[in-house]
């Protein structure tokens, strides 16, 4: 059921004037004056080209932009009846806009989207990021279609990536979420995704924990998996974004790995007795990698790993890691930079120890996540050194081997998970 208390009177009026809709694309904004017009245009084009007979709406949820974002959206709304080129929709593309707070929060924005979707009784929704500059009219269609026409509850994107892009997802988020939840969704942590009205209703009726508010899309995917709903992935193409700085690696790990560990904890009944993995239906080409020159050797990462490990091993890591894991880390931290290698077997054990420590709150959960950062830097250094000259195919093979290592060691995770201390 929609939580109407989340909706302002103005938003309720706008939703009531729309009535019902089949499709909804939401754009959470915060100071996106530079790109918002292009994003809205792209979605409208997508509706015009792909959903001519369907009732469609665009919902902008703003987190309190202080730039011209709201004014630009208002000016676009004034032109909504302008004559368009080519194929035109038989129905009006409704534009709804609202502000949910004075500071940006993806979770709060999504709660408003859930409520609006429920009130409009939409069949499929998509969320797109206005920071994506490569947003194409096909994107919204590719995210909406599987949920609208084929009964998929969650639609993850697939991007074409350069070799050294998305390494946290490649080395941690994808293999671990795949091994734990048993579903091979490549991009569970993305800024664009699609979902069915039913999943919106299911997620809208649940409280959203603080741990998942920054990256609610992965929580939605896990919800779909654990509720037995069908998931899929759609190829979107290469993704470029506005160079806005974005969160640093510490914040990114807090948001994404924190989200993953929280989902492991919250949905443990689903995965503790489950083995193996299932692939999901993929629309369009599979995950694509484009060749790229190797980045400069990140010696700084190695130094941050070694110094961080030495400083934290007694004060923090001792409370998180198993004795054997800590001993092996000590050995590799003592290696010379030119011979340094972070074995994938050890990396998997480290992550499983961290997940178990998070589960039993060995120390503050936020501190557990922060303590992972130096170890991730060590693994990143090792990975980049190994793959400086690798072809995309070799990198993919390596990722698959890592995924299998995560699956092979899942009993270790379960053992650590169930241990009392």
């Amino acid at each position, binding site marked *: 059921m929609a939580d109407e208390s989340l909706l302002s009177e103005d938003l309720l009026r706008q939703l009531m004037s729309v009535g019902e809709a089949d499709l909804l694309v939401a754009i959470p904004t915060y100071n996106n004056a530079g790109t918002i017009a292009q994003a809205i245009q792209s979605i409208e084009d997508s509706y015009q080209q792909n959903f001519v007979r369907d009732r469609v709406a665009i919902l902008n949820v703003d987190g309190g932009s202080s730039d011209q974002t709201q004014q630009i959206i208002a000016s676009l709304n004034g032109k909504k009846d302008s004559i368009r080129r080519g194929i035109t929709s038989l129905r009006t593309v409704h534009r709804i806009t609202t502000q949910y707070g004075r500071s940006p929060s993806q979770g709060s924005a999504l709660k408003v989207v859930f409520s609006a979707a429920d009130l409009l009784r939409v069949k499929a929704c998509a969320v797109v990021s206005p920071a994506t500059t490569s947003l194409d009219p096909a994107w919204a269609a590719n995210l909406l279609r599987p949920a609208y026409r084929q009964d998929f509850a969650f639609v993850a994107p697939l991007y074409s990536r350069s070799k*050294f*892009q*998305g*390494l*946290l*997802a490649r080395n941690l*988020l994808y293999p671990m979420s795949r091994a734990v939840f048993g579903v091979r969704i490549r991009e569970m*942590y*993305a800024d664009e995704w699609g979902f069915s009205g039913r999943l919106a209703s299911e997620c809208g009726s649940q409280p959203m924990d603080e741990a998942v508010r920054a990256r609610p899309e992965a929580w939605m995917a896990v919800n779909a998996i654990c509720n037995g709903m069908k998931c899929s992935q759609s190829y979107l193409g290469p993704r470029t974004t506005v*160079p806005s*700085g*974005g969160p*640093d*690696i*510490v914040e*990114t*790990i807090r948001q*994404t790995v924190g989200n993953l560990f929280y989902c492991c904890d919250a949905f443990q009944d689903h995965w503790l007795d489950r083995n193996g993995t299932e692939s999901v239906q993929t629309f369009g080409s599979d995950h694509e990698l484009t060749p790229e020159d190797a*980045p*400069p*050797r*990140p010696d*700084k*990462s190695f*130094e*941050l790993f070694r*110094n*961080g490990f030495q*400083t*934290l091993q007694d*004060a*923090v890591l001792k*409370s998180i890691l198993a004795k054997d894991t800590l001993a092996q880390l000590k050995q590799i931290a003592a290696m010379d930079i030119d011979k340094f290698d972070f074995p994938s077997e050890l990396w998997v054990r480290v992550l499983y120890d961290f997940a178990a420590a998070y589960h039993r*709150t*060995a*120390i*503050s959960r936020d*501190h557990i996540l*922060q*303590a992972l*950062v*130096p170890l991730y*830097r060590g693994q*990143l250094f090792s990975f980049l050194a190994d793959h400086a000259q690798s072809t995309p195919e070799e990198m993919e093979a390596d990722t698959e081997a890592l995924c299998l290592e995560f699956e092979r060691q899942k009993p270790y995770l379960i053992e650590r998970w169930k241990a009392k201390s």
Partner: protein
Amino acid sequence: MKDAIVQGLQQAYQNMSQMIAQFLPRLVVMLVIVLTGVLVAYAFKYAARMILRLTKLDRLSEEAGASKVLRMAALPSMTEVLSRSVFWITLLGFILIGISVLNIAGLQEQIARLLRLLPEIVVAMLILFLGLVIANFLSRAVLLGSVNRGYGSAMLFSWSVRFIIWILAITMALDELSVARQTVLAAFSIVFGAFMLGLAIAFGFGGQDLARKFLERSLAEKKTDDSDELQPL
């Protein structure tokens, strides 16, 4: 003259012998009481531990979130904390009884005063416990923050925070007990002031370059193309 000295010495010797003769049995009694106290305290500790384990207090404490607080302070489980408290309270009680057997003038009164101070002692212990929890939590937060930003003196920063909070907690606890209130406050002001002044001088004179670099780094626009932090998602 000589006789008077010998007589005086004899008198002193007799008095001392008499005092020792009177005191020694009391001392032995006190030692017996304290020894018994140790045994009883151990027995109580193990009994308390068993009962608390049977009642599954740790699980309740986990559910209530109290275990998290204890872990944050690097303290053992709730069962262990309570059974150890039972041990020390029992032992303290026996020690007080033992001391009262010694019948030393003024000591009885001090013990009675100590008992009257019991509520303040509990509050002071609570303050120290909270101080310990906060000091451990914040010092670890500073340690992790410094390590992840690549600062060289992460341990120093962390220990500085821990030290400041400990000093503050001890001062507040002593203030609660009204122990040399003025002196403690003055000592705290001096120690804290000296520490901050030391830091200010060290940073201002010794680390001008470091300060300049730090401010430049903090105020400059964030770089996103560090080789260390390739686009992670």
